[in-house]
């Protein structure tokens, strides 16, 4: 007797669609995955059944419009396991730069001639601000290895590996010269979660923190170091307030420097 295959769904909220590409760019592995699981909802790839009961729901994108709140609750109801993929779903994304900004209320009116037709919440927030999340995969974008690795673990009843160590560790493994030491570059590597493969130091540039905060990052000392290295307060603030501006402790450190410039 053939056992029922595990069922998965991929949902999208406010995002660039780049994290769903972890599935669509997977090549042969996409075909293998589709044999091992049953895909019930994945609008960009052609499956539409947003309320179907599934074992794993992957969520891309942040919660940023009123109807998003109802939708994410329904996704939570439908899924045994809810996994956020990427900086938007996990931390509010780049669009969280509007959070806490007074003038942001007027931005919609600046951009659209008929702002009354635009439905938008004042803040862009992570999925975890609204419902319980079982696994958060960081990255802007997440990698194919992260997403398929987590899927394989979950399907086998194993807790997925989700390393929280900083980019520095990966840099050392790869033998990259430290660009903070050799070039005085304002590298976010010491406080940023690994997973990208230390790409930026690998091409000779400072990490800009797109995988979000590492576990137990010393962001306060990092900011002080940037100041000593010659960045002004505004520049320090912008290092922390970028791709994952709503994630702690980046949010607090960034705001502190922004307000005290």
């Amino acid at each position, binding site marked *: 007797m053939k056992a029922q295959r595990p069922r998965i769904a991929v949902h*999208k*909220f*406010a*995002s*660039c*669609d*780049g*994290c*769903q*590409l972890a599935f*669509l*760019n997977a*090549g*042969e592995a*996409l*075909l293998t995955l*589709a044999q091992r699981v049953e*895909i019930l909802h994945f*609008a*960009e*790839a*052609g*499956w*539409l059944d*947003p309320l179907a009961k599934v074992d794993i729901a992957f969520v891309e994108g942040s919660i*940023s419009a009123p109807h*998003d709140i109802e939708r994410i609750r329904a996704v939570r109801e439908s899924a045994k396991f809810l996994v956020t993929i990427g900086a938007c779903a996990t931390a509010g*994304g*780049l*669009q969280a730069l*509007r959070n806490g900004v007074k003038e*942001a209320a007027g*931005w*919609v009116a*600046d*951009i*659209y*001639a*008929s702002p009354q*037709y*635009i*439905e*938008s919440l004042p803040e862009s927030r992570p999925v975890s601000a609204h419902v319980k999340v079982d696994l958060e995969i960081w990255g*802007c*974008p997440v*990698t194919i290895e992260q997403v398929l690795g987590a899927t394989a673990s979950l399907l086998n009843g194993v807790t997925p590996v989700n390393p929280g160590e900083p980019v520095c560790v990966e840099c050392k493994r790869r033998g990259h010269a430290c660009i903070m030491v050799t070039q005085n570059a304002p590298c976010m590597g010491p406080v940023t979660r690994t997973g*990208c*493969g230390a*790409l*930026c130091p*690998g*091409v*000779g*540039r400072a990490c*800009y923190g*797109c995988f979000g905060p590492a576990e137990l990052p010393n962001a306060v000392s990092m900011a002080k170091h940037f100041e000593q290295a010659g960045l002004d307060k505004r*520049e320090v603030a*912008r290092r922390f307030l*970028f*791709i994952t501006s709503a994630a702690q402790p980046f949010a607090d450190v960034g705001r502190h420097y922004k307000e005290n410039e």
Partner: protein
Amino acid sequence: MSNRTVNLNVPVLARVEGEGALDLSIANGEIAELRLRIFEPPRLFEKFLEGRSYLEVPDMVARICGICPVAYQISAVQALESVLGIEPTPWIRDMRRLFYCGEWIESHSLHIHLLAAPDFLGFANAIDMAGKYPDIVRRGLKIQEAGNAIISFLGGRSVHPVGVRVGGFWHAPSTAAAAKLLAELEALLPEAEALALWTVSLPLPDETQDFECVSLGHAGEYPITRGSIVSSRGLDIGIAEFDNEFQESHAPHSTALHCHHRGQDYLVGPLARMNLNLDQLPSATRKLLEACGMRFPSFNLFHSIVARALEIHAALVEAIRLLRSYAPTDAPYLEAAPRAGVGFGASEAPRGILWHRYELDGSGSIVSARIVPPTSQNQARIEADLRASLNRFGLDQPEHEIRQHAETVIRNYDPCISCATHFLKLNIKKKA
């Protein structure tokens, strides 16, 4: 049948990038209302850019679209370099073209196989299609991966690549990496030929419409990274003159702005590019076109899938040419002191012209930013196409068939709704 009333609502369009919907009502045998509704929430990128350093722009605008981040980065750096007075070296220009070829190959192959082809062969998705046509889908995924490999060669990764900076690239890849990539691409060329011939064999509807094609045009090259703005009705202007010819307006049903050329809808993207730049195709691609037995210029929108396949081939031929003569450089980027000014950038994203305008202050901070993506330029055309195409298809057809036809028409444009939603400033502040 003629006096029936049909209210067709497609709440979520499948196999498009981003969130869009279609509302259609038919009364007394006529289309009473037709709206391509874009409800992807606005992300307000143009505002986030204000006050950031020009050096941060490439990484920020990449996040507008995960499928075409290269296009955003290249249009942006071009605009910023024009303010700073940086003139890219031949090495930088060549590597940008190579980098961009990767994105065309990736995006076009994804669209052909995962989004569009299932419509023509009667499947709901590419996985079902792979059940009957496994080799076709595998070939498509392989070509898509090769496009991603080109982007990663210069950018480290294919989604939100990290290799680009204002002034050039952060590093020059090694000769060994170039040789490895070249071998992969050369092996793929026959597959790209077979793909183009396969698209011609698809049962594509035969339907011609009258519309203006708009693309970039540049002497001596098929337009990818640069050019002036040209059209099938004789337009030929510099990119800084965009606003004199094209106007954006906000349709209440959409978080994207519509763009018109002197009040008319127009087409951007692969079919428009192909129609306007046939003589610039590499000779190998021209031969392939002849073997396909297709005639361009074509005003059948369904020929877009063939144009996409031919552009994959052309991009592959170009990438191979650029890699064969590849040598690393000690100067992969140029630097310049910041200065105040306004700059424009335009390149051919996989879906069509992507236009940027930035104003910088003397310290290199962004004063204002404006971005016009291809999908908002195509949106009026898509609606006009739907009206014409559905009337021709027959409004008395069964509802599910009308729906399927409408979705096919929309998907054929490869609309990127994530892109279309997020910006487009309507009130341009004009200083007296």
